[in-house]
């Protein structure tokens, strides 16, 4: 709750033109926004650019935020719209390059699934790495609307209500898309014998 109060205070100050408050808001939300952007474009450089664009849009329009919803939900709405717009542009550039899979897998992804010392056997570590890598690929192959919802729900822990607000769709739609997205990921893992 205290975090929410702090965020509200930062938003109030940022709306009054306080650049320090704006910077602090960026620091608070840069992690979730960058990860959402990364999952949407599957490329660290593009994700960086997209995240910057999200915060520039936040900067431009924070004056219009009325506080009817939580600020995070509003920011996710900005992010979702920015991602949609960027993906449309990318599709125009190359209609066959919506995701970069095996051939171009980002080195950051590889780094992120490096084994950690958890006391598991090397075989278990390998299986876990393989599972993670397959999940990453399966998520990357999801249609963008499904992908955004599964990232918001399973990777970032938003509630159905918050996702509904961010994606500007009904809770029923969120449930339906999430269920289908998870089922697709499961099917991919099953195809590889991982579940």
């Amino acid at each position, binding site marked *: 709750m205290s975090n929410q109060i702090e965020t509200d205070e930062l938003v109030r100050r940022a709306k009054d*033109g306080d650049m320090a408050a704006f910077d602090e808001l960026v620091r608070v939300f840069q992690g979730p926004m960058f990860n959402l952007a990364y999952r949407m474009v599957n490329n660290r450089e593009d994700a960086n650019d997209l995240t910057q664009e999200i915060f520039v849009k936040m900067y431009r329009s924070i004056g219009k935020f009325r506080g009817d919803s939580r600020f995070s939900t509003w920011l996710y709405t900005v992010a979702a719209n920015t991602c949609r717009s960027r993906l449309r542009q990318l599709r125009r550039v190359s209609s066959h390059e919506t995701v970069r899979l095996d051939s171009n897998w980002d080195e950051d992804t590889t780094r992120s699934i490096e084994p950690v010392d958890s006391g598991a056997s090397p075989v278990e570590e390998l299986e876990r790495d393989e599972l993670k890598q397959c999940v990453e690929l399966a998520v990357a192959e999801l249609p963008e609307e499904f992908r955004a919802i599964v990232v918001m729900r399973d990777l970032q822990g938003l509630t159905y209500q918050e996702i509904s607000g961010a994606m500007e769709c009904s809770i029923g739609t969120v449930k339906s898309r999430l269920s289908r997205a998870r089922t697709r990921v*499961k099917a991919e893992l099953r195809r590889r014998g991982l*579940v």
Partner: protein
Amino acid sequence: MNCEQIRELMSEHIDGVLDGDRSRDLIGHMAECGDCRRELEALTKTVSALRDLDALEPPADLLEGIHERLSLESTFGPQPPSRIAHLFSLPWLRASAAAILLVGVICIWGLHEQGTVCERGDVHVAEATRRQNMDNYDGATLAAEADAAYPPTGSKGADRHYTRKKKEILEEGHEHDENVIAGKGSKSPVSPVAKPGTSDPMNAESGVADVVPGPKPGPVGPPGVEQPDERKDAPRHPLHQDGTMLADAEHDAIFKEASDAELGQEYKTAEQAAGEREETGPAVDAKNQLKPGSEVRKATPPNKTKEQPVEILLASADHEAALRAIAGVLPVSDQKRKLETEFALAREVTKKEAPTKKRYDVVSRTDNKTVVSVSIPATSYAELMKKLRAVGDVSVDQKYDQAATDTETRAKKQQRLPHEAASRQVQAEPREVQVRITIVTPKKK
């Protein structure tokens, strides 16, 4: 509930948001269906794997990048690619653009098909009708002129065009004079110059060549669509389609039609034009303007150079090549460059557009001397000099030459490092160089 309905509930069940009745149905079904139990187990493992994915650390310089971007947009306005891309994301606009492009391609194809045979004919028709007006040729002489202008070519389309032209000469007489020269009075789409009221590349040039990022100012009409244009009554010269000008005799005959008095009213001297170009606003202090919640405003255009134009003397035997070289460095597409050169003379008698949009002015022209004032991107100065040296002997005041070269160097550096320039609040360099070229051509005997 059957298995399919139960499986649709599994996702909500895993999240713990399934209401009581349906939750009981699902649990009851699980007790008696092994397949669905395995499905639920696999889905639970999948969701668990999804939630185990590692979060990536955002780049350390993310905030810095945002600041740079805000500074840039504050200085130069929102970046054009995304705005243009947004425009073209609209399906109806894409369709319209495609349609306009298609019409343009058809028109250009038409020009190529028929232009060659007609350009010669248009010149002769113009000459014939002019002589008719001046000397009161009798009908027989006129018919002979028309026949001479349009001998049968064997080409069906060309002959049809010639027949129509001949008929126009004989029937319309005096009414069909300079308009024919301009390719205006005829309905034929074959004149190698753009018709008044259609898309005029000279209007379009300023938008394309704008150095300030942003959409083109003012629409360009689609080919073939009549648009209000005060220049439509002005005569134009027929020019050869390959970009070369008319022979001197032909040109002189046509050029005399425009009175010096008229030219004097329409033309502004280079000094006047330079004075108008200097009327720009102050530079923007980007960072001081930053304030969250306010729309990032468009900055005033960067200051244009206030220096004197670079005076260049070019002695060249090939006048047209010199004109082409000058037009060649203007930042427009290749096709427009070509048209620009072709229309260089036509503009002398037709230009009435706002002086601030001019980038290519023929200030004066005599038999052996043409003075051209041109505003080029600062980064193209070396290219211009190279092109000029290729067509003749160039003399330029070293002081101005060095200043322009320095400007070019700085502009190129700024072009390479826009972020650095913006973040350091570097004063924007002049992005254009004003050049005044005097082309001296040996007199022809």
